[in-house]
């Protein structure tokens, strides 16, 4: 089961303050989303690859869906963006498909943007303990009742994954197999999957509320924490230097 994406480790990236890393992710993603230049995208991609290496991680996992979505992005851009010079053209019956140089460039840039987005997110989640992230956010000022929702939601992820598998197995035991169904039957199967899942999940709310409120959750406007997440000089330094690095790269790659 996938559970959480966190890969424990001791690299510099692992040791950075979670909120600092979140800010870095936001800055990086912001830059990725507002720039379409192919060269800059490639440069950002380079930073990403180096960071993965520095954090001791392979470059992302689960390649199949990533590749298929990349291909989709690339095809849409190359087929529909008609800029530059047409490179080649062919007819399929009445439809003529043409590939333009600008389309290829736009396709490549969009794919890089996608890879940069998911690559940086992967780097973030792989090096950040989600529990520590929530605690750090709450210590940085997020109201704790809201902050704990993240922890609680994550707490139940493995349980829901397990329940989902059980329900699918129960369906198969009743002779219902999803593969090879007609759309109408598929819709019924989905309904039959979601309803027990929702009811079973909501059935936990009462017990959870009694358990949490019974331990003084929400009694005081503030709370204390067993573990503190201190901000180090390295955090401040990274936060300062990273935007400069991105800016410099932007200038160099024009």
């Amino acid at each position: 089961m996938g559970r959480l994406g966190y890969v424990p480790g001791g690299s510099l990236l692992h040791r950075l303050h979670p909120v600092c890393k979140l800010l870095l992710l936001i800055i990086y993603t912001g830059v990725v989303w507002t720039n379409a230049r192919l060269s800059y995208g490639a440069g950002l991609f380079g930073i990403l690859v180096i960071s993965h290496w520095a954090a001791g991680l392979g470059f992302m996992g689960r390649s199949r869906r990533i590749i298929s979505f990349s291909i989709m992005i690339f095809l849409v851009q190359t087929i529909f963006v008609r800029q530059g010079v047409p490179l080649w053209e062919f007819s399929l019956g009445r439809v003529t498909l043409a590939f333009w140089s600008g389309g290829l460039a736009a396709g490549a840039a969009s794919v890089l943007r996608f890879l940069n987005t998911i690559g940086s997110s992967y780097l973030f989640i792989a090096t950040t303990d989600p529990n520590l992230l929530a605690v750090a956010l709450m210590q940085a000022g997020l109201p704790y009742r809201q902050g704990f929702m993240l922890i609680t939601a994550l707490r139940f992820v493995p349980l829901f994954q397990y329940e989902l598998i059980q329900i699918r197995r129960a369906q198969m035991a009743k002779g219902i197999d999803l593969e090879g169904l007609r759309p109408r039957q598929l819709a019924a199967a989905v309904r039959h999957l979601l309803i027990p899942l929702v009811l079973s999940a909501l059935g936990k709310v009462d017990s959870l509320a009694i358990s949490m409120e019974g331990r003084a959750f929400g009694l005081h406007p503030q709370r204390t924490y067993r573990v503190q997440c201190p901000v180090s000089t390295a955090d401040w330094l990274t936060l300062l230097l990273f935007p400069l690095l991105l800016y410099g790269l932007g200038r160099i790659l024009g």
Partner: protein
Amino acid sequence: MEPIIRIEQLTFTYEGARRPALKEVDLAIWPGEFVLLTGPSGCGKSTLALCLNGVIPRDYPGSMEGKVLIGGRETTSFAPGELAGIVGLVQQDPDSQLCTLKVVDEVAFGPENLCLSPGEIDRRVRWALDAVGALHLWDREVYTLSGGEKQRVAIASVLAMQPQVLILDEPTANLDPRGAWEVIDVIDKLRREEQTTIIVIEHRLQRLLPLADRLLVMEDGTLGEGPPERPRAAYPAKPPASITKEPLLQVENLTVDWEGRRLLEDVSFKAHRGEIIAIMGDNGSGKTSLLMSLLGLIPPREGKITFAGEDITSLKAHVRARCMGLALQNPNHQLFARTNLEEAALPSRSLRPGGADEGEIRRLLGEFALPPERLPFTLSLGEKKRLILVSLLAYRPPLLLLDEPLVGQDDDRIGELLAILYGHAAAGGAVLLVCHEVALVSRFDRILFLEEGRLVIDAPPARAWEKLCALGRREYLEGWSWDD
């Protein structure tokens, strides 16, 4: 000395309910007492627990008369959460009362909410985990714990609040015998070593009764002092059925892996027409995995499964389901339809040649006291389990695979269910069922006992009990809930 808990003429009726859940309850409990509260399911035990920690009447709509006083003060005069450090409640389901990702955070959760200093929080976490013998679980992730471990962590997380009263509401109900013993040992340790007042709500009295200062018995909302009436008649014995020589099901060297874990290792056994076979073992020992693998829900790594002489190892689950009907443990994962009738007919639609036989299904529903037009999701746990059994019986698979079908059933119902299973065997079927009630499974033909995925015992009951003792697993036998 003042009683820590005093209840005067307490009557509570849930909104929309016709009858009160609690009727004119009077009770005084003294500091340091260990009180056992018992009674049939639905008698109002849990409602009483919720009255003690103030959740009723604050969070549950309904009408309340009388008074509940904690330390001389009425619960209604406490601000929400203010009772948290005074009355602690541990609930039945180990999973839904833990809200954080790691054991240490779970136990620290309460003290952190009380705004204690980090040093004090640490001290309390250490103390509470030590008190339940779970210091070694400190850094573990909650989802990797066993049921017994989760329940111990839940107790520790309440203890860390240092409550004056600790209430445990059926803390062992969802656990296997080993987990239940772990929890009972913890309760015993707390009773001996701490000053806390303890109230345990429990069906299974055998082991706790000698520890308790007092036994309270609740019935239909009214409270009396024990001892309880001597329960139940003996279960009917299985009538002799002709057991065939040729096996109906033959499993050879079955090994099953799932997500990198070995669930079953080299399991071989046979089941014949006319047989009822009980499967026993700890949670996680592979009981459920075995049933699922037989149906093909988890693909085998190695091994061969033969049904009525035919190799079915490579058939898909929805095809195999024609010859074996599986009821999973948690009925909430298996109900899909809008009415009991529809639900009971669901498997027949795809698995019975000629589709569902509505007349037969209505007859079965009647026999199991299930109204055909009711919404399945609103049934009680026992009723849901019976409904699933009906849906299997409706298409008559020769082999029934039942995971804990008797949990949540009243005694009368268990007798009826047994009669049905005996009838199925007599008609040339076979039953494999997971069950931990020694008194019950002693009536069956054979016991399969699993330990860490291996089949370590395959023998008739009397012989199986001897072997269990030899394996050092007496906890399965020590008059766990009923003696023969």
